[in-house]
């Protein structure tokens, strides 16, 4: 079974994002970019499935600007076998991404697609579900555990109040939650080897996908700042303030 893993290049999670002065978006120029953390978990899971013998090949895909090839190289250094870069505008909408991925799936015919559950820039949490819908495949979202058996996959999903187990017919779409695994670091020799692994570049137009945005960004603003608080010297003072000033207890 081949596994396709879509990965996204996003502003590094350690960077505090700054809203552009003109309110058109968040500053990304000159900012450190990395692989979306949930996608690292997705790559790790695919590589582990290959190491266990449940998968034969891991193909990583990214959709966006030329620099996304760095993200693909990182994924190959973690153990992915080859990569596909689909050149498009920076950060297309999930609907467009899902359509591009559907076209990639038609070409590659994988047994499973593993995505991160959400990207930490647009916080959409939609692409995996949308891809599964377009393909008519089962979806194992927010996966905390994945077990592949003959022709099906059992997924333990993180839900409100606990976990839920579902089994899906293969091929299926999985989205990785934080606790699925601990992604490995790429070693220097593996980073060197990854440079020689194949990276195919396609154009979004060649796939016949219309990427016209359905959502127009009217403005992006900083959230309201909280008024500065005070430090209190004792528990008694805290309780007094909560009772008489904030009136919450």
């Amino acid at each position: 079974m081949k596994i396709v893993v879509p990965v996204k290049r996003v502003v590094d999670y350690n960077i505090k994002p700054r809203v552009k002065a003109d309110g058109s978006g968040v500053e990304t120029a000159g900012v450190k970019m990395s692989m979306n953390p949930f996608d690292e978990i997705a790559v790790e899971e695919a590589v582990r499935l290959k190491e266990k013998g449940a998968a034969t090949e891991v193909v990583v895909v990214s959709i966006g600007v030329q620099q996304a090839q760095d993200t693909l190289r990182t994924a190959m250094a973690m153990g992915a076998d080859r990569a596909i870069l689909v050149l498009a505008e920076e950060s297309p909408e999930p609907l467009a991404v899902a359509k591009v991925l559907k076209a990639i799936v038609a070409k590659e015919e994988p047994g499973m697609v593993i995505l991160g559950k959400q990207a930490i820039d647009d916080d959409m949490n939609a692409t995996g579900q949308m891809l599964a819908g377009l393909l008519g495949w089962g979806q194992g979202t927010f996966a905390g555990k994945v077990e592949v058996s003959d022709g099906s996959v059992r997924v333990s999903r993180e839900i409100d109040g606990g976990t839920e187990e579902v089994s899906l017919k293969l091929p299926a779409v999985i989205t990785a939650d934080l606790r699925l695994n601990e992604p490995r670091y790429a070693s220097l020799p593996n980073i060197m080897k990854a440079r020689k692994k194949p990276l195919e570049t396609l154009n979004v137009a060649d796939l016949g996908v219309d990427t016209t945005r359905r959502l127009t960004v009217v403005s992006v603003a900083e959230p309201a700042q909280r008024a500065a608080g005070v430090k209190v010297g004792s528990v008694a003072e805290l309780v007094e303030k909560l009772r008489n000033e904030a009136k919450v207890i």
Partner: protein
Amino acid sequence: MTALVLLDHEEGRIRKAALSAVAAATQFGDVHVLVAGNDAVAQAAAKIAGVAKVLHAADARYAHELAEPLAALLVSLAGGYTHIVAAAGAVGKNVLPRAAALLDVQPIPDVVRIVDADTFVRPIYAGNALATVKSSDSKKVLTVRSSAFDAVAAEGGAAAIEVVAPAEDPAVSHFEAVHLSDSERPELESARVVVSGGRGLQSEEKFKILDPLADTLGAAIGASRAAVDSGFVPNDYQVGQTGKIVAPELYMAFGISGAIQHLAGMKDSRVIVAVNKDPEAPIFQVADYGIEGDLFEVIPQLTEALK
């Protein structure tokens, strides 16, 4: 305009978050709700204030709110509706994007404010920015953040219940089991008071020091990702970008440094209290009241003082 709300439920009870989704949907016009599952929930849904009609999908295939059959059902019913809405919980986030793709529309997740019928405000970058977006789709599919909309009353309505026929099921998924963590305490996302612990609590054993305090306050217990990853509490306690989003009247953070991913889940609380021994912890920048000190001394003192 008429909106259809997917009303999620657990163990035969409507989730409070679903009542917030109904509140948001009333801004678009008439509200119909879709209940997938048992009869008692449909009966309860008919009593919700502001609901004009209940669509009840009684077929057994919908009992566990699996995404594949449920999204297909939503699509089959979508015709008469301008807006399809759900709470941004595990069910809404799982089902609505799939339905949106089948309807060829871009969903709008986690809405915190409705500007007009096609313009919405939603947080991006872990709540570090608020984006106002305008949808050009003919049908809007959105999930709403329950802490941003006051729930409608669960009683007072008298809607008609209409049983809806099942839609064609892709039959690619099967429910196996559910494991809910038992808790007598209020639900994290709807609690008036939340007491939360972080890595500073040190162990699963020591984390229990929060129990008497939570009991005294009638509070829900939350945790940071660090506390969950260290195994102190199960992961459904997690407050943050990747866990639950809460906005209680009072949020008390013990031994939590205040990483941006945690702040994204709680910074809209009305009053925030932080107890931490590190005076430089970022949590103090959002806290209304802070105590610098050893939480193993502060927590018992606080519990005692509040009794």
